[in-house]
């Protein structure tokens, strides 16, 4: 279709929308959609640049190996435990902070914004500095623990902790991630509370409702949809955790904190086995899409 000057101009005037969307689409195609399709293709091949294993088509073998490899399952279980506990901590802490901030008072907006800083600064920077804070000998946290309880903890070691016997290193990853993401949970719950119409809030005030009645009949109904949104975003993001683990423990000691994305990174850029790495990342993608659909349907149902 030869687009002479004249016809190009009326193409734009006829379909201005497409003309506006095209450039974004092209760049997304090139650096987003196409690579994903390409990596899907790669996941059906085995090859290794370092040990010169030639490129050969293996069909679903990569997937089969992964689904049956104890190593892969161990990483999934670790990631599952990590997600569950960090989600619990973030919800409980986030909810209580939101409740404390629920009612309007001077400086409330300032406090909420300051609390957002951990979420906004680079996870790499926070994780790296937590290595100092959690340092066995010089770390301030152990200094405080010693002063208060007279104990010191190998935060980045592998010995089991009182929480379900999980290694301390994994607990440290959970703590750092929760330090970063709790404000996100708190903020969304606050937004849910913010959706409560102000005249309803004042009505409760004039009616003299006690805090527990306000909680049960006013706050909870309005933040229920928000909880679903939080679960969806947090599940997706915690599956993607990489920066904190890489900097804090690099998956160590040994493989105690090797979450899924760190494992994929190791497969691809340490063992150079792109076949398995892409296959595993596709398994994760399928898991994410499945979970989002479940939540989207629940959310739409809730709000519909």
């Amino acid at each position, binding site marked *: 279709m030869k687009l002479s000057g004249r016809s190009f101009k009326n193409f734009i005037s006829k379909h201005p929308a497409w003309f506006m969307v095209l450039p*974004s689409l092209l760049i997304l195609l090139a650096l987003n959609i196409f690579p994903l399709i390409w990596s899907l293709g790669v996941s059906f091949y085995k090859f290794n640049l370092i040990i010169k294993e030639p490129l050969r088509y293996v069909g679903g073998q990569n997937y089969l190996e992964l689904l049956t490899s104890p190593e892969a399952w161990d990483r999934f279980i670790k990631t599952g435990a990590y997600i569950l506990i960090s989600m619990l901590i973030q919800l409980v802490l986030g909810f209580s902070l939101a409740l404390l901030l629920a009612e309007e008072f001077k400086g409330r907006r300032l406090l909420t914004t300051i609390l957002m800083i951990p979420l*906004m600064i680079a996870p790499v920077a926070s994780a790296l500095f937590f290595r100092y804070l959690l340092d066995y000998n*010089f770390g301030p946290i152990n200094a405080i623990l010693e002063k208060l309880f007279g104990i010191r903890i190998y935060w980045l070691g592998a010995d089991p902790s009182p929480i379900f016997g999980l290694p301390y290193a994994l607990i440290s990853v959970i703590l750092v991630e929760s330090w970063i993401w709790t404000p996100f949970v708190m903020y969304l719950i606050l937004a849910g509370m913010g959706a409560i119409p102000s005249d309803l809030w004042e009505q409760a005030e004039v009616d003299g409702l006690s805090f527990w009645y306000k909680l049960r009949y006013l706050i909870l109904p309005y933040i229920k949809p928000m909880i679903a949104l939080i679960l969806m975003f947090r599940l997706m993001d915690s599956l993607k955790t990489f920066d904190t683990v890489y900097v804090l423990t690099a998956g160590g000691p040994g493989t105690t904190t090797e979450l899924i*994305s760190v494992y994929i990174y190791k497969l691809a850029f340490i063992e150079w086995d792109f076949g398995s790495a892409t296959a595993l990342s596709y398994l994760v993608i399928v898991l994410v899409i499945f979970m989002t659909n479940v939540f989207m349907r629940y959310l739409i149902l809730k709000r519909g």
Partner: protein
Amino acid sequence: MVESLLLYKIKKYLRVIILVILILAYLSPLYWIFTTAFKTRSEMFANPFYLTQVTLENFEEAARYGAFDAITNSVIITVGGVGLALVLSVFAAYAFSRYALRGKNILMFYILSTRMMPPIALVIPIFMMFQKFGLKGTYAGLILMYATISLPFSIWMIKSFIDDIPKDIDQAAILDGHSLTYVLFKIVIPMVLPGIVASIVFSAITIWNEFVFALLLSGINTRPTSVLLSSIRGERGFNWGRIAAIEVVYILPIIIFVFLVQKHLLRGLTFGTVRR
């Protein structure tokens, strides 16, 4: 009778006091980052809590260590990525907001799904592609990549702001006889300026903090601060004063940005879906 007035007043102030203590404890890591950055090495070990004599030696050491280049790389990549994404997303956002494009919902869902994609899944194929086209380690490659990453977010964000403007305003301008470009640049964009600024800031924060893509796609002389910080992990004996200095310079702009977009935090965090 309703609980006594006194109890009501006590409860009110008690709650604020607990809150302030909790928040101070919660933000103590930031306190340590900022104090350690100005601490002399000796005082570092003597008392990990207080800062008595302020020194700038850590910052000089950080500069000598190459932190300055890493920060400039971060700036180049962020400005480039955000700029390119902005130009593309303003047009796309306007099109998605104002026109009933066929397949619009599929497109919007696809764009939302890029937010869900684990970056590691994407970085492997990109790594292979960049190696094939010689883009690995170049500013252009990083900027192009980061524009693509923040494009979906800023399309959604700006679209949510344009949706807030009634369509009648565009039609009024069309009826006045103005062209589509006039409507876009003289009417719609000026009206959504706060929204555009917010989406610029959010994209900038995302790119400035990004690590996975930078780790694998940047070269020695194009690596941003996040990669520099992660490379320190490999060294023996950490010089925490120097690390703290680099981190202060690295996180300070973000803290300022957060206060800039305070009003639109919610819209940014939930990808424009929740507006309130």
